[in-house]
């Protein structure tokens, strides 16, 4: 690649042709402010509308200031990032944005984590000289996400991630000029739109325009209610990210402090979603082997590839976009819902608590789980299997409010029996993990042999689409993996055309899987943080004494005491579900004149 030499702030630098001024400056340690620009390196997420102009710099010989995030360097270019003119222009941009921004930082849920607020601090804004007209959009509260468009600065990051990375297309810029905003079609609610509730728009929104629905108050009230037994489950990806909220380095594994904090908060039982991930493998793995055996015996009608079903955003996606394929995903519920279903039956009976007196809380990296636990089919007579789902961020708030010094907590462990888990359960937290866990069990059940090496390195990685073939004693199983719904769409289109070579496909909606779910600590575009969490997941797996789901003793007991066989009658009743066609129906109107 050709190198280009240029001068930035009086220093010479050489960068590859095609580099933007922004990146060239970053390499030299010059941090030009940005707002609309957003990139998740290596994940295929890039928003570069060049619209906000907070990043303008002076380029010698040009009359106008140039936006650094979209202007490529040229040979001999002389750039000033901190001239009076550039600084004043940026300040004006910022002041104009602030003039149409409700200044209610004190009670904004993004406060302390807001990129606009950070810029106001960085620029030492003390007054806003412009009297702007204030936008007045209706606040929308969906099952997972709150949209407060009065705070929107039209960076369009959400639109980019929803359309390009997820190919969901729930959001689009609408109108022009002052009323311009990002919205759904006809301003319908997110629930009416194709939105999957993946929460990635929330994860990238620089301000408080898109935030999660907060259930912390309900959780505190439940704990305080003496009549209630409150059970909490924690998803795998939470333990490798929560530490960031307390200033720890990304990738810190805080399982011990996490369980201690939950006990200090007053939960009656602290359990692990890794446990129900193991249970998921028993059910989903059995389903996979069942379909595969039929197929190998020459049954042509069997539905293959089987698709994983533990990501509720992914479930929403195929229900809306590919309803014709709704019979091919596994019918196994997600680990969150399996946990709820068992907690409120088996476990409630064990401790002699009535269903109505038990509250199940889940701590998730995910916003789709908030929506999922409210789905009608996951309730018994209106009583949901999982009552409240809170995010990693919400848990951090709970811990801070309760005066718990997280870092210095003495490590505790999960309670028994729904807290015993394996390495297979924890890798559910990242892309490729669910299918690897399934392979560990399927291999041993199918071949009757013990795996020499439980690590299926060929299934790991952060590329958007991956493929591998697993040799099960001569029978070759082709596995496809996608994260990001745009990648899932590609694999689904192959299935639709009958061209798919895969026997099983794993899909997770978020970049890297749940480790970068919409409820995780915000990374502000730093993909190294995601990488660190990813490594921490596999490190946790390696540290576990048991690493295969079917060897989890408390899962074995559950089948013996309660469920019978995997995919048996009781399992079907409690652990499996069905899917709906959600594509808008165009009906012929006979009366309308």
């Amino acid at each position: 690649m050709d190198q280009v030499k240029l001068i930035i702030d009086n220093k010479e630098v050489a960068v590859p042709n095609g580099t933007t001024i922004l990146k060239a400056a970053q390499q030299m340690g010059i941090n030009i402010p940005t707002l609309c620009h957003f990139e998740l390196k290596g994940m295929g997420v890039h928003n570069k509308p060049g619209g906000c102009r907070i990043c303008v710099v002076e380029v010698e010989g040009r009359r106008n200031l140039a936006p650094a995030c979209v202007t490529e360097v040229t040979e001999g270019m002389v750039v000033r990032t901190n001239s009076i003119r550039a600084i004043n222009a940026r300040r004006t941009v910022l002041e104009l944005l602030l003039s149409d921004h409700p200044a209610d930082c004190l009670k904004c849920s993004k406060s302390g984590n807001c990129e606009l607020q950070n810029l106001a601090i960085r620029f030492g804004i003390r007054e806003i000289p412009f009297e702007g007209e204030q936008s007045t959009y209706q606040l929308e509260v969906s099952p997972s996400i709150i949209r407060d468009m009065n705070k929107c600065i039209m960076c369009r990051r959400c639109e980019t991630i929803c359309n390009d990375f997820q190919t969901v297309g729930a959001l689009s810029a609408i109108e022009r000029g002052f009323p311009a905003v990002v919205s759904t079609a006809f301003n319908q609610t997110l629930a009416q739109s194709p939105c999957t509730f993946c929460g990635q728009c929330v994860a990238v929104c620089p301000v408080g325009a898109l935030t999660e629905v907060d259930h912390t108050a309900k959780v505190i009230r439940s704990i305080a209610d003496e009549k209630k037994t409150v059970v909490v489950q924690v998803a795998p990806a939470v333990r490798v990210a929560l530490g960031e909220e307390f200033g720890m380095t990304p990738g810190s594994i805080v399982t011990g402090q996490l369980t201690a904090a939950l006990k200090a908060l007053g939960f009656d039982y602290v359990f692990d979603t890794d446990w129900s991930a193991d249970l998921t493998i028993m059910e989903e793995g059995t389903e996979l082997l069942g379909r595969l055996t039929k197929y190998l015996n020459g049954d042509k009608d069997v539905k293959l590839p089987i698709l994983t079903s533990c990501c509720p955003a992914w479930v929403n996606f195929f229900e809306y976009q590919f309803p014709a394929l709704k019979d091919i995903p596994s019918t196994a519920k997600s680990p969150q819902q399996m946990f709820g279903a068992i907690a409120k039956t088996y476990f409630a009976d064990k401790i002699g608590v009535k269903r109505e007196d038990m509250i199940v809380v889940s701590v998730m990296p995910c916003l789709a789980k908030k929506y999922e636990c409210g789905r009608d089919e996951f309730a018994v007579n209106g009583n949901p299997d999982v009552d409240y789902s809170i995010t990693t961020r919400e848990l951090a708030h709970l811990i801070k409010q309760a005066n718990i010094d997280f870092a210095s907590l003495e490590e505790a462990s999960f309670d028994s029996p729904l807290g015993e888990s394996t390495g297979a359960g924890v890798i559910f937290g990242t892309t490729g993990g669910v299918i690897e866990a399934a392979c560990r069990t399927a291999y041993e059940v199918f071949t009757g042999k013990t795996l020499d090496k439980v690590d299926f390195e060929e299934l790991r990685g952060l590329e958007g689409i991956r493929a591998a073939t697993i040799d099960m004693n001569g029978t070759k199983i082709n596995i496809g993996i996608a994260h990001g719904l745009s990648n899932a769409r590609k694999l689904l289109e192959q299935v639709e055309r009958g061209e798919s070579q895969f026997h099983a496909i794993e899909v997770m909606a978020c970049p890297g899987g749940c480790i970068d779910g919409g409820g995780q600590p915000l990374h502000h575009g730093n993909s190294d943080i995601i990488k660190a969490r990813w490594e921490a997941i596999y490190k946790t797996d390696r540290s576990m004494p048991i690493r295969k789901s079917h060897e989890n003793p408390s899962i074995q007991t559950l089948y013996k005491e309660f469920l019978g066989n995997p995919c048996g009658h009781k399992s079907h009743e409690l652990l499996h579900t069905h899917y709906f066609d959600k594509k808008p129906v165009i009906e012929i109107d006979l009366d309308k004149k």
Partner: protein
Amino acid sequence: MPVRIKIRQENREKIEAICRSFNNNPGELINVLHQTQNFLGYLPAEAQEVIAQNLHIPTAKVYGVVSFYSFFSMIPKGKYPVSVCMGTACYVRGAEKVLDEFKTQLGIGVGETGPDGEFSLASLRCVGACGLAPVALIGEKVHGRLAADDVKVIIEETRKLG
């Protein structure tokens, strides 16, 4: 559960034919919208939904384009569309007062249609009848040298046409 959209059979077929005539190419969205609006007179949500499904693009994107351009409308025009000229000549001779009077008398804003579907209201750039300023068009008929006081009368006269 799924959103249900109703549309008349012939409208659906016509819109699908328009999409087909552009090879269902998403790049032709604006042309598809133009032709659909020419046919229906406006672009109701159900028409946009049909277009989105046929061009394989998100409905939000179609709506984004419809709401961006002022020449697209989601509201059917009234039986008598009223357009008040806001060109310079009309403006300096009091077109704004005339427009305001139309708003008051009809009880609707610019870009809206009354609940009985009789009248809709729009403002126009110069219609080239500056000698008659201020001017309003009701349907095809030109009303010139208007004052706010005349508005009530001409609305009533138009209504009588049935």
